[in-house]
């Protein structure tokens, strides 16, 4: 991609007190998500109750930053005009090894992207803020996920 993603004039996240720990961590280059102390499941996106068991005993924990690409799309005609200078760019569904799935920006790797590819958390300056993007694991770069 030729352009600097950080120069994009795009809508940022609409952060609330509930979601601030996620975005604050992201700004520091960390990926943190909620975990339910009662059912043990990981939760994305942040909520006041666990969507699996409705427990309120939720803890923020840093995630491994490893995930699997469930699907992706190369966006040629963005839904928001602010993204036009970056097109085509790739968004994907990332299933974190913790179990929850998030949508994210997928940075280009050296090989064509494939569903099932292993991804790594790659905090990236996009539109004037650091967003929790992901990048493909390159051959020889990584062992198998735990």
């Amino acid at each position: 991609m030729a352009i600097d993603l950080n120069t994009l004039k795009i809508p940022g996240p609409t952060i609330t007190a509930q979601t601030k720990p996620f975005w604050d961590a992201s700004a520091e280059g960390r990926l943190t998500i909620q975990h339910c102390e009662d059912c043990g499941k990981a939760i994305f996106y942040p909520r006041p109750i666990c969507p699996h068991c409705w427990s309120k005993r939720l803890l923020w924990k840093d995630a491994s930053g490893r995930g699997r690409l469930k699907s992706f799309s190369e966006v040629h005609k963005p839904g928001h005009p602010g993204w036009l200078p970056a097109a085509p760019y790739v968004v994907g569904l990332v299933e974190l090894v913790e179990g929850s799935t998030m949508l994210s920006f997928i940075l280009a790797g050296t090989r064509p992207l494939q569903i099932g590819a292993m991804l790594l958390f790659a905090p990236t300056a996009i539109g004037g803020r650091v967003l929790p993007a992901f990048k493909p694991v390159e051959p020889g770069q990584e062992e198998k996920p735990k």
Partner: protein
Amino acid sequence: MSRSKGSIVGIGELKPQRLTQGVTTLQMIAEVSRLAVLDAGLEPAAIDGLLVGPQVGETPQHVPATIAEYLGLAPTMANVVDLGGASGAGMVWRAAAAIEAGMCETVLCVLANNREETAPRSPNRNPIREFDVPFGASGANISYALLMQAHMAEYGSTAPDFAAIAAAALANAQLNPDAIFYGKVADVDAVLASPMIASPLHLLEIVMPVAGGEAVVVTSADRARSLRKPPVHLLGAGEKVTHRAVSQAPSLTSGPLKSAMARAFHQSGTDADAMDLLSLYDCYTIMVATTVEDAGLCAPGQFGAWLCDHDLSHKGDKPLNTHGGQLGFGQPDLAGGMTHVVEAVRQLRGEAGERQIGKAGLALVTGNGATMSEATALVLGAA
């Protein structure tokens, strides 16, 4: 087969337009409501139930009261049905249920939208806005592209398999002079040659947004017998809502329509193979593919072969979206889902003219909203 749960006795439809100028959605609701009530042969005063859609921007709140006042109605049951593309089908069973509950006798179900050149951007403050939009994933195209890519990876379905759905819709639209693609055909190659919007979705695999309106009048089966048009009976319905953001979808290759259709078939004592018309929600080609598979018309992943084996035209063995579907007709926002109800009523009445199917006893109508999230299925039967 089961007894009628209620009957559709009137339909109205506005010809879709690419853009409107200085026309409000309320005006369009009035025009299309009048058509449906006239078609039913009823006086406006006979309408004592009102189901409407949300109206982002124009009337954020008090929508039923605003519309009732505008139309001069005083309904004894009024509500908003907010299920995206499933709203139209969702209205039909809710109308029948409200009548059965004794709340009203004759319900107007209406959806319409204007389409001005400078529509305001969404004022949303919800999880989609916070966790999808900042990554460059605004709008439904990307969500359905993700569903389509996942189907291709899981089953090996191909770009031409999907393009064939759009080509069939546009072919059917050639018998509907109101369709936005009337006079404009595209074969599989032409669909694949249309611009890539969000891979693997091409432009012609995506509905064209238009202005328009659709309305139906639902009453009790008893009352329907005395009205001027042959009633179309609601024999079964099903609904399911699972998520909103595509990242939260329980499956990328099967949707909530699967259980909604199963319930509709069970209630009506029918099955997918018994349907004479498939009126399937088609915002994108992938939606038809998944619905055909979820209905059990073919095995999961096999829609491509199924398409090759069947003729989807009005003369064919599996007529599918004889009005051109929304891919051929255009998508008048939430009213787009209701086009599938209105066309099914035309066919089951024997009023579809040049595109009338042969045997027209049973129709499956599906509605789908958001990102394969909101699902309603109806089984309709001829009088």
